[in-house]
């Protein structure tokens, strides 16, 4: 089977596309993490008017269609758009922006859920033992670390496997913005099924590893 041979022989094109996919998804996830962990914390630890509505809105955005994000980011980055002067359309940088926007809601929502999962007894214990407000917040975040890491891994999984943003913002340019998902779509339409299958196997393998990691950090290895 040529698909397996392409992987085992470390075909340069396969390796290059895989490396680019990982680099873009990791960058998007890292940026999203830096933004959403404090944002999720801010929403969770502060009571404000309309908090429930904000959380509902974030949860609604979990299932944001990737092509919709692609369209909005396209309009932002297009030459005539507000960020057009930066020349980010059809670049990996543009893809990172799109993917970050795509995964931010689910990561924020899951961060809030992770922090909500830490019962009030933890806060009481920390404060009772003399923790300041910030020390108590840090303690609660530390208690939620497994669920927060799972949120980050899920964000990474979504970034890696999405195709709408990659296609519309990246443009699937060979050697520059072509990633696993867009390459699979293209090669399948061109009839190179074996090449598509090789990339598909890699994508599924990475997803499997991510899922195993999510389970691992949640403490139910193989469960």
């Amino acid at each position, binding site marked *: 089977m040529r698909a397996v041979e392409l992987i085992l022989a470390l075909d340069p094109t396969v390796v290059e596309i895989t490396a680019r996919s990982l680099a873009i998804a990791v960058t998007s996830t890292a940026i999203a993490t830096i933004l959403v962990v404090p944002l999720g914390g801010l929403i969770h630890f502060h009571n404000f008017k309309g908090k429930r509505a904000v959380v509902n809105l974030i949860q609604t955005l979990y299932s944001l269609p990737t092509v919709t994000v692609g369209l909005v980011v396209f309009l932002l980055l297009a030459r005539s758009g507000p960020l057009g002067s930066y020349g980010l359309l059809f670049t990996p940088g543009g893809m990172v922006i799109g993917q970050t926007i795509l995964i931010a809601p689910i990561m924020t929502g899951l961060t809030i859920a992770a922090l909500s999962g830490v019962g009030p*007894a933890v806060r*009481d214990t920390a404060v*009772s*033992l*003399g923790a*300041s407000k910030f020390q108590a917040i840090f303690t609660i975040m530390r*208690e939620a670390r497994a669920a927060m890491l799972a949120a980050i891994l899920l964000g990474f999984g979504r970034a890696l496997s999405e195709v709408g943003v990659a296609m519309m913002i990246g443009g699937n340019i060979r050697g520059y913005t072509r990633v696993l998902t867009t390459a699979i779509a293209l090669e399948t339409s061109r009839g190179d099924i074996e090449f598509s299958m090789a990339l598909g196997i890699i994508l599924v393998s990475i997803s499997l590893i991510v899922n195993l990691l999510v389970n691992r950090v949640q403490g139910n290895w193989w469960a």
Partner: protein
Amino acid sequence: MIEARGVWARRGRADILKDVSIEVGKGEILAIIGPTGSGKTTLLRVLNLLDHPDEGRVFFDRVDVTEDERARFSARRRMAMVFQKPSMFNLTVEKNVSYGLKIRGVSGSAFRDRVRAALRDVGLSGYEKRRAFSLSGGEAQRVALARALVTEPELLLLDEATANLDPRTAETIEGLIRGAREKGLAVVMATHDLDQARRLADGVAVLVGGELVQLGSPEEVFERPKSEEVAHFVRARVGW
């Protein structure tokens, strides 16, 4: 050391504490007894400055700590509480016990020695590297006590501290409570164990329905209950 003056606590329309006033000095143990739901835990939470009273004042070392957050924070650092169902941090036993020291910026060799000594005192030497979540209820209770005592508080608040323990361990813990009194700590303990209140306490407060119905020495409360209500409670429970 700590004084609650005319404290009221409400949840919605229900009065949980009704005009409760108590005072505990250094080297004294006050036991709070009363039926389930009489407000014992709420009173401890008010004294631990976790909850604000709806009315009344709380004084720590003669300083009014009812409202001022800075005063409350510094008073809280001089006390420690063990909850009825202690919550363990998802860390090792050692890290749980050292929590209070770490947030106070204590470090160096004294740090480890104090943690080890605290665990030894509660009979859990060698438990340092165990995951706190793997402990039994009784072990967790003892870790919670070690975690409270390691900070060398001046006021110790205990909510049913020996409820989950076997008689022998409970005896060890009672010894620690006596030791704390000898060191000059003020101790306020809510307990269902009336014999324990008799054995340990210098003063006994009886809460019924959020009201302080009697406050006095163990002898007064148990031998000369002030009302039918108190008599009924103390006699039914000690099997007279």
